[in-house]
């Protein structure tokens, strides 16, 4: 399955060819370089892009900014870089959660940037607790690892706390339904805002960097406004993770932050395009945790919204997760349900009491009930539905 957005399917196939000829390719390509792996259920592509931008402000950097985050995609990004860079340039790589343990064999001294873990594509990926357990077992056998990790996510802490050198960051976690139980002992966790603890003694580590209302507070207490072009609280969290990772890699916040601020889209996410003759802002909404951050990002009611649901392999083949999203929040606006699984969404919206239309292809003929306004129309898609909208709009414009 090719997940590349920028360079077409041939890009990842190239990586597969290299891997077939040389199974050791990733080890060879990473030899002697400083490597950062960014992984999370949500925000890993954005965090990778922000971190690469931050590092890029200080010197050349190699990255897989195509979103191709499985081994073949990484090999392709490294073996066929967009431009030639020095042999000692740092590498910033986005890693799929399930592939991360295997990828680390090629970079046992990597810096890990670990954001969050929640339910996603449950037909393909493991249950959340199992991913965290596998990470922990891998990390504990690799004493050379260092990490920048989200102290507010108990699964992340469970996995990362076996690493001796961790910089804990508090960026919040809007979705807590997958970390009800203590990863250590199985008891129910106590929660108070971002803080959490268990009767067994496992608790949130004290963070040294904190996201606070659009600003980052460093270990010395100094406050710096993020001033991002990217919308939403989740992207502030991504930016703080990237900022602290850049700091760990030797690029200070005063250089990193201005380099991240002007980024306006990531692989087409948040990009305004023209579709069906309308100005449309493209958004990726692929799981309940992502949607928990989405409602605050949408143009406010009564602005209509298009939601495109597919359930192919890269989306997860079971769209039952639509029932974990409080779509009741969309009451008072019209929703256009589209995509291959639009009927699943329509049933969800019907039971939520949300006015909606079910349309196979709104971009061929936008329903007249959706009236043009000055603002772009928000269109949220699952991974492949988003990709399809982006393809029809002519692809991502954000440069690597």
């Amino acid at each position: 399955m090719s997940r590349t957005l920028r360079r077409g399917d041939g890009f990842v196939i190239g990586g597969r060819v290299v891997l077939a000829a040389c199974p050791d390719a990733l080890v060879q390509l990473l030899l002697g370089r400083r490597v950062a792996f960014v992984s999370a259920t949500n925000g890993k592509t954005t965090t990778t892009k922000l971190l690469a931008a931050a590092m890029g402000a200080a010197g050349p950097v190699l990255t897989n900014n195509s979103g191709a985050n499985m081994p073949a995609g990484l090999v392709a990004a490294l073996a066929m870089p967009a431009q030639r860079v020095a042999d000692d340039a740092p590498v910033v790589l986005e890693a799929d959660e399930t592939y991360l343990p295997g990828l680390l064999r090629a970079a046992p001294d990597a810096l890990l940037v670990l954001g969050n873990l929640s339910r996603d594509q449950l037909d393909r990926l493991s249950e959340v607790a199992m991913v965290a357990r596998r990470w922990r077992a891998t990390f504990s056998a690799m004493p050379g690892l260092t990490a920048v990790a989200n102290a507010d996510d108990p699964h992340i802490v469970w996995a990362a706390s076996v690493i001796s050198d961790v910089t804990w960051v508090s960026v919040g976690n809007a979705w807590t339904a997958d970390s009800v139980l203590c990863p250590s002992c199985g008891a129910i966790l106590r929660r108070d805002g971002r803080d959490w603890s268990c009767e067994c003694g496992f608790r949130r580590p004290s963070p040294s960097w904190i996201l606070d209302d659009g600003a980052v507070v460093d270990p010395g207490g100094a406050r710096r406004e993020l001033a991002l072009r990217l919308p939403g609280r989740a992207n502030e969290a991504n930016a703080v993770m990237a900022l602290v990772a850049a700091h760990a890699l030797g690029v200070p916040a005063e250089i990193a932050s201005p380099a991240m601020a002007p980024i306006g889209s990531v692989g087409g996410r948040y990009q305004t395009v023209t579709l069906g003759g309308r100005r449309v802002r493209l958004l990726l909404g692929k799981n309940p945790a992502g949607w928990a951050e989405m409602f605050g990002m949408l143009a406010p009611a009564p602005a209509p919204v298009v939601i495109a649901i597919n359930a192919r392999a890269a989306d997860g083949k079971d769209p039952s997760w639509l029932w974990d999203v409080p779509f009741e929040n969309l009451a008072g606006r019209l929703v256009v349900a589209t995509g291959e699984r639009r009927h699943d969404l329509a049933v969800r919206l019907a039971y939520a009491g949300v006015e909606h239309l079910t349309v196979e292809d709104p971009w061929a003929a936008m329903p007249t009930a959706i009236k043009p306004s000055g603002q772009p129309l928000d269109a949220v898609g699952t991974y492949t539905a988003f990709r399809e909208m982006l393809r029809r709009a002519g692809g991502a414009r954000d440069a690597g």
Partner: protein
Amino acid sequence: MPGDAAIRLVSIYPMLLGTYGDGGNLRVLTMRARLRGLQVEPVELDAGEPVPDGADLYLLGGGEDDAQVAAARALRRDRGLARAVERGAAVFGVCAGYQLLGKEFPGSNGVLEPGLELLDVTTGRLPKRAVGELLAEPVSSSLVELTQPLTGYENHAGGTTLGAGARPLARVRAGVGNGVGQLEGAVQGRIVGTYLHGPGLARNPQLADLLLSWVVGSSLPPLDLPAVDALRAERLAAVKPAKE
């Protein structure tokens, strides 16, 4: 259900047993009752909270292994659900919530965990995880009112064997279901267990209304929801039944 009293629906520990979207079953039942003008009191129990034994219908969903074990232990200690069943309350359990109603099921690391013994079924491990669309024909001798094909999505590693006290809910046409004897789900009195996610009651309105009719004590007037008909038509067309 006495007179005009509200229907009391209890979703048991959705934070533990709600990983696969089964929280939707409570929303579906609540809306289908309200659209018929019935009063409904839906309740979602926090993990470990005592289970009130005076409700009409209890719902349990799918969850991760550790969460399933935690829920089963809390329910065994609490006994509220068992008392409610003795009183004649209805129960609808899905996946992990189906398995824990039985005698035993594989918990964390495959160690067998005792269930609530409300349903005469025993669950072991399937050789290969069952993941995909599930299509099944209701077994008419189990629930005569259920006539329409059951459609849903399954994602489990449990193989469930029915004892003499339980009847099969349906016969598998596509997918795995119980993984034993081409059967899917179990029925025992007013307890229904199934592997159907989707959620199961969103994709199978006849089953939702059957549960509600048990609570109300009479059948319910038809409810026209074209979106549900369209979803069923699309899903039934998408799944090829295995050859008989």
